[in-house]
Structures are given as structure tokens and as C-alpha cells.
């Protein structure tokens, strides 16, 4: 398999430019694709960094292959070209949409967006932009809260106007967002300079258009309990931050997860900072909702390090080999569908691509023919060990259940260690079987535990939304349900198997869950055979 040396950077703004620059500085060949720039996207004309091959006005239209050997197709004005790249970084800008509808307004000479006025203020002096003594009203997040980075820009501009021009500003918001650096101080300074801040809860102001096109705003001031009316010479409307429209297509082509709002990263702490569900594909800046110039530049730095780590093969300890026994493989494509990392090639034969595999074990656990074997996974051995527990505590009086706890190495295993660190002890007769992921335990594994004399089986996996593999924990839940069904067909109480979720920090909860389960199985008695 060819390993390429080029890297693809997708994005039309400063973040992508920084990423390209950072990588090129490290001697990595970069192809920078600026995507299909639409009118709604706020871009600045950029000089491409030296050493970077910028393909302007182009888009990614196809991608095959895996980490290290992606074969991509670019389309530039109808002309398609094929390239081989080792890694891909999506650093497209976020989409900033004017928030007119939140305030019941439309764009006009007197009602402008934040970006528009900021852009104008870069070119001309404030005095010529805004009439003397003008009443300027800032509208920032009413029923729907503002993004802190947008609020920061609004506050900074309000302070600037209030301090260095004769404008009289009024800042109207729901929740005043001051979490970004220096914003509390900025807000205090704006107030001290004479800006009037008005905050709302459920009762939002009413707008009316005056004959001279000024905007009349009637509002209830909760602080004084009184009603006010202001006639605005200029209204500055904020923007909302969205996933760039190109991300949907990119996600499909690259087979990437997206979060509920369309950004190119599952809202999963395991993706921190710039990872996606695919090795070799990274996301940065506005494509993962990072807003703010400084923050985007920082993100461009950290993603560059991660990319270089990946290219140098330093991003993980060892590659676990996963082999598909071609003799047993029936080409049912179950593994291909199960793999959350898109790491399985189907042609010419079903193969797990080592470069892309992240060792979750879902494929091996899901293969109906048990054709997939992972090196040093250790689960079958651990299950065997159950039947070799000394002293047969299951037959003692009072009855101490012999339990198998299947746990993923990120949640249950760490929680167990945290529990021991807190000084907790587990009941005798409990055997812990550690797996790579909750989804790495097959139904066979679970049932084999009962064959190895377990009275009860507990499967502990990550919370929904916290699983590194994304879907591993829900597969674990389904397999427990299947195993429970199998148990009841065999005349065994289905409650002897139980699925629970926890996370690495839940040390004492781990002990509680295990103790509860011990009590329940003890009440059921030993498994009679």
C-alpha cells in the first residue's frame, strides 16, 4: 500500500491558512483547498503561505482509502484531478448568519450586522461611519443565547464606539456573555464610559420602524421595573455560529461523524482536541465550532502537532493486528458496517487496514463466523480463568455469587482503579474481564462466562455519547439483551445478565453497581446446571 507524504487542508479562512503554514514550516507538502466559497461565508482575501500549493475555488468530491493512503478527487471549476494524501485536515470557517429574525428586523441602511460594521470600521474612521451623538443599539442574543465569541466582538465594538466616538450606545442582551478573556473588564469599561446595558429574561423588547427609518425599541428594564423607549439611529445585529454548508458534503465523502448542530466532530470528549472518528482525518477551527481569531490560531497550532505526530507514526503505542481469516469470512459485510472508524477495506478481500484501525474490537465481536482475530486481546483467556477460581466460593454458605464483570478499558477498568485508590474493595468471587471497548464483547463471550460457572454477568461500558468508538456501548447494550434472551430460552433467569454504563471517574459508583449486582444475584441463588 502506498503511503503518501502530502497533506490536504480544506478551508477558506485564516485558520486553514495557519494550519497550512504550520505544516509547511515542518517540511510537509500541503495542498490547500479553499472549497466552494459562498456569499454567506465571511472570508478575508488571504495570501497563501509560501511552500503551500493552494488550489483556489476547488472542492473535495471523492475520497477512497485509509489513513496514510487516501486517494482524493478534487474538482476545480469542473476539472477533476486525483491526488494521494496521507492525512486530511478540515479547517473550514464556521458560517456566521445575521440574526435579524431573532429581533424581528431586516437589513437596512440603519440595521447592520456586526461583521459588516467591523469590516467598514477597518477601512474608515469611526467618525465618518457613525454620525455624531448617534444612538447606537447593539442586539446580542435574546431568547437564544449568543455565542461567547460573538458577544466578545459585540462588547469590544461597543466599548470602542462609546469611548472614542460621540455615539451613545445601548447594549441589549438576554444573558450577558462575559466568559471570554477580558470581557468582564471590557464590559465594566464600557459601562464606565457611558454605555447603557439592558438585560432581558422572557420579556423581550418590541420593535417598530419609524417614518424616518430609525428603529424604535420599546423595552422593559427589569432592574428598575420601568418601561423605556429608544429611537435608534443605528442598530447592530449579532450573528449566530453554524456549521459551514460544505461540511455536510465533506462528512459524507470522508465518512465522518457530525454533532447535533452539524460540526465535523461528535460532541464526545474522546474527540478532544482535533480528532474525528477516522485516523488521519482531523478537524480544526470553525469546523469544530472554535470561534475567535486567537482561539482559531491556537487550534491551528495544536492540530498541526497532531498531524505531524500521526505522519511520524508517533500517535499511538502499538498497532494491534486484526486478522480476518479468509477461510471463514463469508463477506457478509457486518464488520464493514460495524466499524466506527471506517477501517475495513472490502476489495479485493475483507481486510482490516492497520493504519486506520483503532482497536475497538467491534468487528471481531460482531462477526457471525468468528472470522476476526485480534492479537493479545485476552478476553477468551480471561473468561477461561473464571472456572479456575480457587475454593469455589459459589458453593459456600452464605452463597457468594461468582460474577464476571466485563468492562471496557476506558470506563470500567479505570473506574475500578479509581475505586481501589479510594480504598474500596470488591466482593470475593468477582472476576474482572477487561476489553478494548464495551463493543468488543460478543454474545458468545457473555454466554461463555456462564459456561465457565459464572452465576451472573455484568457488562459495564461507557455512557451513551462518551464511547470512544461512538457505537460500542450501544452494541454492548444490544448484545446483553440478546444474551438475556438466549438465557431465558435456556431456562435461565435473564436478570443474571445486566448492562450498565459509567465513566472513568466513577470509582465509588463502580463499587455500588457491583455490590448491587452481587446482592441481586445472591438473591437468585447459584446458577443450577
Amino acid at each position, binding site marked *: 500500500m502506498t503511503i503518501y507524504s502530502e497533506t490536504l487542508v480544506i478551508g477558506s479562512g485564516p485558520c486553514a491558512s495557519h494550519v497550512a503554514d504550520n505544516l509547511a514550516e515542518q517540511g510537509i507538502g500541503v495542498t490547500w483547498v479553499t472549497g466552494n466559497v459562498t456569499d454567506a461565508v465571511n472570508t478575508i482575501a488571504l495570501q497563501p503561505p509560501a511552500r503551500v500549493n493552494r488550489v483556489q475555488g476547488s472542492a473535495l468530491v471523492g475520497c477512497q482509502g485509509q489513513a496514510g493512503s487516501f486517494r482524493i478527487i478534487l474538482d476545480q471549476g469542473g476539472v477533476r484531478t486525483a491526488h494521494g494524501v496521507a492525512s486530511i485536515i478540515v479547517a473550514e470557517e464556521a458560517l456566521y448568519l445575521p440574526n435579524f429574525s431573532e429581533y424581528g428586523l431586516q437589513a437596512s441602511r440603519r440595521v447592520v450586522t456586526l461583521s459588516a460594521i467591523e469590516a467598514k470600521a477597518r477601512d474608515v474612521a469611526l467618525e465618518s461611519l457613525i454620525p455624531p451623538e448617534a*444612538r447606537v443599539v447593539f442586539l446580542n442574543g435574546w431568547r437564544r443565547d449568543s455565542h461567547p465569541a460573538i458577544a466578545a466582538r459585540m462588547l469590544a465594538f461597543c466599548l470602542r464606539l462609546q469611548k472614542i466616538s460621540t455615539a451613545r450606545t445601548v447594549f441589549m442582551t438576554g444573558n450577558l456573555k462575559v466568559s471570554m478573556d477580558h470581557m468582564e473588564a471590557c464590559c465594566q469599561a464600557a459601562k464606565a464610559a*457611558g454605555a447603557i446595558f439592558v438585560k432581558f429574561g422572557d420579556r423581550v423588547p418590541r420593535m417598530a420602524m419609524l417614518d424616518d427609518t430609525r428603529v424604535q425599541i*420599546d423595552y422593559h428594564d427589569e*432592574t*428598575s*421595573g420601568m418601561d*423605556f*423607549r429608544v429611537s435608534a439611529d443605528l442598530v447592530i445585529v449579532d450573528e449566530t455560529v453554524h456549521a459551514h454548508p460544505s461540511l455536510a458534503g465533506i462528512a459524507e465523502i470522508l465518512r465522518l461523524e457530525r454533532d447535533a448542530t452539524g460540526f465535523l466532530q461528535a460532541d464526545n470528549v474522546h474527540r478532544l482536541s482535533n480528532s474525528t472518528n477516522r485516523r488521519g482525518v482531523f478537524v480544526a477551527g470553525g469546523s469544530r465550532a472554535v470561534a475567535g481569531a486567537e482561539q482559531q490560531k491556537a487550534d491551528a497550532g495544536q492540530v498541526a502537532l497532531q498531524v505531524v505526530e500521526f505522519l511520524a507514526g508517533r500517535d499511538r503505542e502499538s498497532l494491534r493486528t486484526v486478522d480476518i481469516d479468509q477461510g471463514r469470512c463469508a463477506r457478509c459485510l457486518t464488520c464493514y458496517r460495524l466499524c466506527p472508524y471506517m477501517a475495513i477495506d472490502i476489495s479485493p478481500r475483507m481486510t482490516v487496514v492497520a493504519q486506520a484501525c483503532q482497536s475497538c474490537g467491534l468487528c471481531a465481536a460482531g462477526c457471525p463466523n468468528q472470522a476476526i482475530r485480534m492479537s493479545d486481546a485476552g478476553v477468551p483467556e480471561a473468561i477461561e480463568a473464571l472456572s479456575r477460581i480457587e475454593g469455589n466460593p459459589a458453593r459456600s454458605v452464605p452463597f457468594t455469587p461468582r460474577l464476571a464483570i466485563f468492562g471496557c478499558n476506558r470506563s470500567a477498568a479505570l473506574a475500578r482503579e479509581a475505586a481501589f485508590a479510594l480504598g474500596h474493595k470488591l466482593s470475593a468471587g468477582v472476576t474482572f474481564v477487561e476489553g478494548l471497548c464495551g463493543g468488543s464483547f460478543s454474545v458468545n463471550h457473555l454466554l461463555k462466562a456462564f459456561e465457565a460457572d459464572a452465576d451472573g454477568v455484568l457488562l459495564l461500558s461507557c455512557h451513551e455519547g462518551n464511547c470512544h468508538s461512538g457505537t460500542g456501548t450501544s452494541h454492548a447494550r444490544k448484545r446483553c439483551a440478546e444474551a438475556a434472551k438466549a438465557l431465558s430460552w435456556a431456562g435461565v433467569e435473564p436478570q443474571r445478565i445486566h448492562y450498565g454504563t459509567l465513566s472513568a471517574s466513577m470509582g465509588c459508583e463502580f463499587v455500588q453497581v457491583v455490590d448491587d449486582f452481587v446482592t441481586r444475584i445472591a438473591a437468585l441463588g447459584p446458577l443450577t446446571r
Partner: protein
Amino acid sequence: MTNPTPSFVRLEDLDAGLCKHWPYAQDVCLTCGMCSGACPVAGMNDFDPRKVVRLVSMGMLNWIVGERWPWICTMCGKCEQVCPMGIDIADMMRAIRALRDRVKIPGILQDGLANALRTGNNLALPKEDFVFILEDVAEEMTEEPGLKDFSIAIDKPGANILTTIHNKLVNTHTEDLKHWWKIFHAAGEDWTIASDNWEGTSWGYFTGDDEAMKIMAGRIVDNMRRLKAKTLLWPE
């Protein structure tokens, strides 16, 4: 049928810079509401300290100066104590009081202040009556166990402490004299009271009348100089 128009205050009608020079930092209010939570009279008359800060910041003095609430304020200062922005709310209340026409301040305060300026105390209590009351209560004290040798010193020169007197102590609450007299006695303190201009309750301070406050304070300073006391105790 039309809905009645709510009464708006138009920002255009306000002079936002009206109180810009007031040194109370009212513009940086966080609207946290702690001042109003601490205030013992918040909500009365539909006012609270946070509202006052807001109105001052907007230059809306016309909406406050004529109101009753600034005079309901006890000037306890709890609002100032809790304010995270360090706004001097109690001082601000006093400044608002100072803006009220002198003949329009609450009657009892007008009368008391006039008395104080004319006679040296809010009750217009003659000197002989004042001294008589003090000596009378002192004699009662000597009848209590352990206080046989108690005495008060009026106009004593060179004492360690000269103390002012709250007018209620020689009017409706004479019994309250005994509590702190006992403390001074047990401490073996060397203290005295002036027979003239003894009033400690400065309604010049309370009504925001700086001139009156200066006059009353000046008289107390004169007492200090005249009696050559070492320390002035001025409970207010």
C-alpha cells in the same frame, strides 16, 4: 378597543450625563441584586437600592428625589457592604436627599434640624432640663448593687473621652443611658458629657444638608477644644 399605551420613558428625554460626575461608581452596576437582597426596606414604595443605582446611572433624578423611599432608607449601609462592584450606595442615597428642597424634607426631620441649629439639640431641650435628667438617672444608678460610687461628670475638662448623646436617651429611652454608663464605670473610664451642643444625631448628615452638618460638627469640635478631652466618642 385599544390597549392603553404603557407609559414609556424616552431615552431621548433623559440627560444620561447628569450624574456622570457623581463619584459613586453607579455606572458599573452588575445588577446582581445583592444590595436589594441586603436592604431591610427593599420593595417598599416600589423601590430598592438596585433600582436607585439604575436610575442615577440613567440621570433619572426626577424619578427619585421627590419619592418617599430615599427617606425610608435607614442608611444602614448593608447595600454598600455586599456590593461586589464597590458602589457607594449609601453615600448615593445621601446625595439624593441633599437634592430635596429643604422645606420639602419630612416634617419631623425639618423640625428637629431647625431645633438643633437653634438650640444645639434636636429636641430644643433646655440645658437645665438636660443636666437634670442625666443627674437623675445617675442617682438611680447608685441605688443598684455595686454602683454606690457611680457618678457622671458633665463639662469636665481634660477627660479621656468626650461623648455625644443621642436625643432619645434624654427623652423616651432614658433607661438606655444606664447600659453604657455601667460599661464605662466597670472599665474605670475617665469620661464626660458636654452640657451644650451635646446632640450626636446629626440630621444635617441624615438629610444631606452639608452646611448644617458642618455647623453641628463644628460645635462638637468646639466642645473638644474647650474641654480639652483626648478622644471624641460620637456614636451615630
